[in-house]
């Protein structure tokens, strides 16, 4: 009968309940949506950065991080690394790369470029690079061809089928110069990379840079992103006492992490404001409800209902309303998040350029992560719970006569 009392009271003023439920729902949906957009776009950024740029993990020469020069490349012993790959739990595959800065020239224009020597099949496994070709094809190993990123191709005014000249310094100051057939143009998701990348086959790049047999980094792809730190730990032990050094993407991109943290802090601020606003809204309706019913409370206390009992019943009422709001918020939030996960929001115009300048894709996919639901759900629920304590608190301190007079 107490539950009946609470339940009927909830539906007694349908409009008020609806307002309360929908403000909770709104808070939950907003919070869920904002956070999953943030998470989604961060995940995407990290994914792009790791796939195209650093990988999740890298093996480097221990000097390379401080002085990223070809002089600090290391000898790529396929037998050694294949056996490490085989014997370390969690490694899916490895991708060797050699990179160096050179000048790239088309027929009339010259631009700085990052030359990446790669094994196309392995690279493709990492980031589906071949799928990003917008013109032509990738080269075979040892073929005298280059694939140029779209931005750079535009700057140099070259297209597939043209000739590209690369000029610069190889290992230990050897001069490096080569002439390549442009076999394809590829569009990279990171603007900075798209504007300056030239892919050569690994052996071709090694030859060009006087670094035969050497690479600058060996990217390691874990089976799942969660294994990164475990693998790093294992490899660090394996390489103890050698000149190899293991770095995770977090070690390699501190600025990115900082930028993401900064972004998160902003979102949190916004969220805090949202919580306060919604909290006051909910408090308003609960307050009116309490004041309207003071007389009724007074009568119940007069006829002999214990304060704590009445306080509990009223608390259950608001609790049920909160649960209703949070659950319906989950429902609607999930629908929205799934929808925008499948159809990500695309940003156009200046916003898109700004985002690309920052190194982000101009799309905002949502992340579907249970912990977001758990976290945001708990926060909103907790807020409403605290607010729900108000009527109970009021009942515990109510002056019966004053209340019954109202």
């Amino acid at each position, binding site marked *: *009968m107490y539950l009946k*009392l609470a339940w009927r009271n909830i539906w*007694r003023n349908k409009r008020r309940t609806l307002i309360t439920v929908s403000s909770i729902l709104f808070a939950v949906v907003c919070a869920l949506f904002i956070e999953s957009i943030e998470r989604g776009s961060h995940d995407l950024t990290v994914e792009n950065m790791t796939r195209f740029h650093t990988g999740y993990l890298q093996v480097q020469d221990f000097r390379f991080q401080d002085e990223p020069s070809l002089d600090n490349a290391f000898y790529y012993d396929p037998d050694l690394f294949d056996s490490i790959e085989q014997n370390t739990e969690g490694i899916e595959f490895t991708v060797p790369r050699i990179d160096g800065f050179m000048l790239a020239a088309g027929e009339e224009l010259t631009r700085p470029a990052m030359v990446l020597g790669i094994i196309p099949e392995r690279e493709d496994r990492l980031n589906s690079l071949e799928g990003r070709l917008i013109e032509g094809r990738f080269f075979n190993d040892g073929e005298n061809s280059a694939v140029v990123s779209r931005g750079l191709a535009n700057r140099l005014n070259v297209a597939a089928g043209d000739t590209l000249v690369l000029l610069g310094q190889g290992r230990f100051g050897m001069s490096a110069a080569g002439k390549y057939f442009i076999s394809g143009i590829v569009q990279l998701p990171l603007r900075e990379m798209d504007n300056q990348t030239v892919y050569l086959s690994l052996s071709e790049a090694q030859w060009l840079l006087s670094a035969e047999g050497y690479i600058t980094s060996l990217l390691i792809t874990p089976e799942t992103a969660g294994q990164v730190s475990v693998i790093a730990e294992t490899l660090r032990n394996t390489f103890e006492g050698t000149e190899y050094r293991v770095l995770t993407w977090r070690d390699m991109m501190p600025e990115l992490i900082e930028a993401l943290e900064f972004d998160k802090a902003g979102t949190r601020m916004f969220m805090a404001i949202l919580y306060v606003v919604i909290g006051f809204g909910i408090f308003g309706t609960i307050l009116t409800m309490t004041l309207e019913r003071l007389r009724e409370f007074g*009568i119940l206390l*007069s*006829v*002999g209902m214990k304060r704590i009992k009445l306080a509990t019943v009223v608390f259950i009422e608001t609790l049920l309303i909160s649960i209703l709001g949070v659950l319906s918020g989950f429902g609607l939030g999930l629908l929205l998040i799934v929808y925008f996960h499948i159809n990500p929001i695309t940003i156009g115009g200046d916003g898109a350029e700004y985002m690309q300048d920052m190194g982000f894709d101009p799309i905002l996919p949502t992340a579907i992560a249970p912990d977001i639901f758990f976290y945001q759900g708990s926060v909103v629920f907790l807020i409403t719970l605290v607010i729900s304590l108000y009527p109970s608190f009021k009942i515990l301190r109510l002056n*019966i006569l004053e209340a019954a007079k109202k």
Partner: protein
Amino acid sequence: MAIVQTKNLSKVYNPDTVPVHALRDVSISIEKGEFTSIVGPSGSGKTTLLNMLGGLDKPSSGSVWVNGKEITSMKESDLIDFRLYNIGFVFQHYNLIPVFTAHENVSFIMLLQNRSKKEIKERADELLEEVGLGDRKNARPVEMSGGQQQRVAVARALASEPKFILADEPTANLDSTSAMNLLDIMSRMNREQNVTFVFSTHDQRVIDRARRVITMVDGAIHKDEYQNVEETKTG
């Protein structure tokens, strides 16, 4: 032994600012089975006195005894329980829990007393029958007239089997037919079941029906007399 008794009861509101002497040295004693009305001009202290008798308010001095127990010094939490088992209340208006039906309103107080489900149901049925609302059991307060609501309130007050029932101007918001009807029910309960009623009123016709009339003026007992009441036929 008196069911309710006050000894030198005084109440001063706002003693520090503008003192209002709502009760001055009131000593009354009400026996089991009495049908007492408290009358007097507005502001004479009727409500204040009833609140004291019901343990809803604390006196400035003096004491209230219910069934041989001094309630003025009881802790609030004990008082709530004491009221539940000893005192029935009928207020002037909005007496009932709006979301409950007549039957549920009557049942609820017995639920608070932890009675068995079966007993609660039977007694609620019986009491509603007695106040003439056997066919309105499932009506909610908003679906009932003021008179019907007050009859439910009387049934609820009776349900807890209190030592006595306090009613502060129970007929004030009712038209005269409903008022007389309510009074008929109350006096019949009084006669047939020996239920003790103490009620305040302004209404002369209600006063005429009371066997004992306590008149208050300016917070003090002015007259306390018994009168003969013609038993009207109730129907």
